[in-house]
């Protein structure tokens, strides 16, 4: 009897909650909660990683902070929820997180079939291989017959199968549920090679018991445009995420930095004026304030600064800008004009 009562009560409360929370725009619900929930990596150095005190750092993490800064003028109003690869999209779909900023590859099927939108690409990446130096391998083409550690349920696992099939090579795959387990197994000598996104290779290498014993092979076997994802259908929220990233790109392009953003407000350059909200009402059109970009840059910095601090020369990863340089410097990062 008790059980029946409990289930009725459960059903009732469930329907109560449902009427309270559903059908609300993300921006409104974020403002109401007073903080942003951001789906992040369970721990990938340079992109999203908590320290022992639970302080998060990384490129993807800073994007979430930038969104929070744009909304609240306070980059600390974010709660990070670490998500494994296999949980990330369900967490976003179910509304558990407002934005998923967790080095997720944008693909057509994810964009069209999973109810997701990828408003921006904040890191252009590709899949690569890491091997032990003493194997004497210098190209991925020499990996015929190797055993390779990979994480299951990722595009990585599929790309790997495609690559070896296309090159008519044999391999032995050893798949693990999490990136941690995968790398541990490689480090323990279970596999000859370890594969994931090239950025991930650099960041995982830091965790090897002897980082200098490993090299990253030059081949990049896939395109991995990594970016934040939001739920399909809430265009205003998608705009906010997209323009947060664009603001950071444009700021770098225009030379607006964390340090000089306040002085730049007085600049005569119309592009800077529009970006920083001294001219036009671009911020209000997205549901934010006109000084949204100032808030982002003041608290978090422009894209270049964030990149250098987290993954570039200023970090332990020392990844070159490469494809992620601005378009003016031969890269792919192209800031859409604010106008």
């Amino acid at each position: 009897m008790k059980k029946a009562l409990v289930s009725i009560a459960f059903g009732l409360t469930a329907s109560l909650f449902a009427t309270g929370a559903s059908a609300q725009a993300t921006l409104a619900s974020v403002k109401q909660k007073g903080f942003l929930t951001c789906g992040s990596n369970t721990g990938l150095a340079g992109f999203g990683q908590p320290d022992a005190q639970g302080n998060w750092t990384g490129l993807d993490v800073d994007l979430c902070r930038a969104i929070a800064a744009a909304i609240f003028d306070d980059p600390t109003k974010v709660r990070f929820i670490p998500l494994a690869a296999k949980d990330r999209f369900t967490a976003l779909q179910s509304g558990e997180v407002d934005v998923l900023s967790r080095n997720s590859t944008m693909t057509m099927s994810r964009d069209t079939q999973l109810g997701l939108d990828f408003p921006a690409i904040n890191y252009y990446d590709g899949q690569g291989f890491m091997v032990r130096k003493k194997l004497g391998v210098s190209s991925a083409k020499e990996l015929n017959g190797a055993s390779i550690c990979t994480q299951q349920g990722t595009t990585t696992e599929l790309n790997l199968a495609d690559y070896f099939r296309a090159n008519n090579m044999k391999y032995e795959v050893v798949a693990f549920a999490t990136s941690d387990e995968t790398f541990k197994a490689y480090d323990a000598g279970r596999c000859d090679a370890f594969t994931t996104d090239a950025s991930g290779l650099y960041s995982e290498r830091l965790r090897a018991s002897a980082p200098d014993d490993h090299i990253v092979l030059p081949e990049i076997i896939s395109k991995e445009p990594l970016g934040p994802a939001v739920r399909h259908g809430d265009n205003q929220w998608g705009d906010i995420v997209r323009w947060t990233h664009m603001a950071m790109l444009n700021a770098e392009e225009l030379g607006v930095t964390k340090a000089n953003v306040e002085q730049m407000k007085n600049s005569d350059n119309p592009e800077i004026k529009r970006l920083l909200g001294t001219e036009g009402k671009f911020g209000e059109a997205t549901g934010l304030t006109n000084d949204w970009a100032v808030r982002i840059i003041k608290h978090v910095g422009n894209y270049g600064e964030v990149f250098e601090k987290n993954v570039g020369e200023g970090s332990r990863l020392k990844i070159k800008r490469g494809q992620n340089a601005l378009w003016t410097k031969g890269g792919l990062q192209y800031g859409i004009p604010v106008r």
Partner: protein
Amino acid sequence: MNATVDIPRFVRAKQVEALPPPNLARGPIAWIRENLFSGPFNTILTLAVFYLLYVSVPPLVKFLFIDAVWTGTDRAACRADAGGSESGACWAFIRDKINYFVYGSYTISERWRVNIFFALLALGVVWLLWLKAPRRDLGAVYFFWVFPVAAYILLTGGNADFGGRFWLGFAIFGALLIALFAFVAAVLKTSMRPALLVGGGIVAVIGITLALVDFDFGLAHVPTSLWGGILVTLLVATVGIVVSLPFGIVLALGRRSKLPLVRLASVVFIEFVRGVPLITVLIMANTMLPLFLPGDMTVDRLLRPLIGTALFASAYMAEVVRGGLQAMPKGQYEGAMSLGLNYPQMMSLIILPQALRIVIPGIVNTFIGLFKDTSLVAIVGIFDLVKTIEASRIDPNWAAPTIGITGYAFAALFYFIFCFGMSRYSLGVERRLAAGQKR
């Protein structure tokens, strides 16, 4: 029997000389001879076991204690190429990370709250398990109501901030419930007072609980994503026992019920859960629970495996309780009925107190299983003790060859102490209960 068969008889005619007294019937040497070297086979066995111990124990002791590294601040202490030692366990690693293993990433300034939680938990466990403790009925109230509410407020910070609408809804719900009880009493023509008391009591308990959770005690909010380590391990186990015992009793009663549909529902639930591995239940809770809930309603990431383990443990608990119910002599049921007790009275006053008492060892054994199974939440990404160790294993500051083994040795020790302690307790209770049954 064929009477013609002559059975040979032997009658001793002469006194046989007495055997010499056994030269060593007592003392350690005799004991050793009796127990270890009583025959060629036994001697070989003993020697084989000695050899086994010789090859396994000294290296283990050497690894865990003699060659172990006790102090150090980073991996240099446990790496041969950096001047450290690689031949022994790296306890320095555990010492460095112990706070992480106990609290996870729980906000440092708020960790005293976790300590109080541990203390409250210990109090509840002792109160319930120590058979001679005073007022064990109050202990049950404490463990199944006061403690969970207090723990929830302490750990999360309380201050759920339901808002006016919620309380309005609750007031309507409460009034309806009391009215329902009054209505039932009126229809059944029983006295109104107890019905109102029961209805009011239920509403009051729920109301007080919700009010406490709602009240702002001024504690900072600590999101569950920061919780970790032993805190989470104990939390999963505690929630498991607090939920599974009542729920298991209900299921066991359901399975023994005379109503066919109630019985069927209980049997299906119990057999289903017992037929699948826990890990599939956890994955189901993780991926499917959000799907079954309406719209934007989400369940906390930590809550999902809690629900999974609690349901899982309930099914096993139900079978233990059922064993106790079945062991009750029929006379107890009949006696209770002849006194005019109704079903709830019979169960709560006569049968369950006796049945639960005899299955205490079974309950504790189920709990040991549950406690070990909590480690599985690591697979669905919850930072329990095992997961914190796994996560620390790849900390570049502590990258050394012995780190993994040391971490697992620590986890093994932790689980062993708890489980072994509980199994000894259950043995003790079993013996005590058996003593009562002896004639």
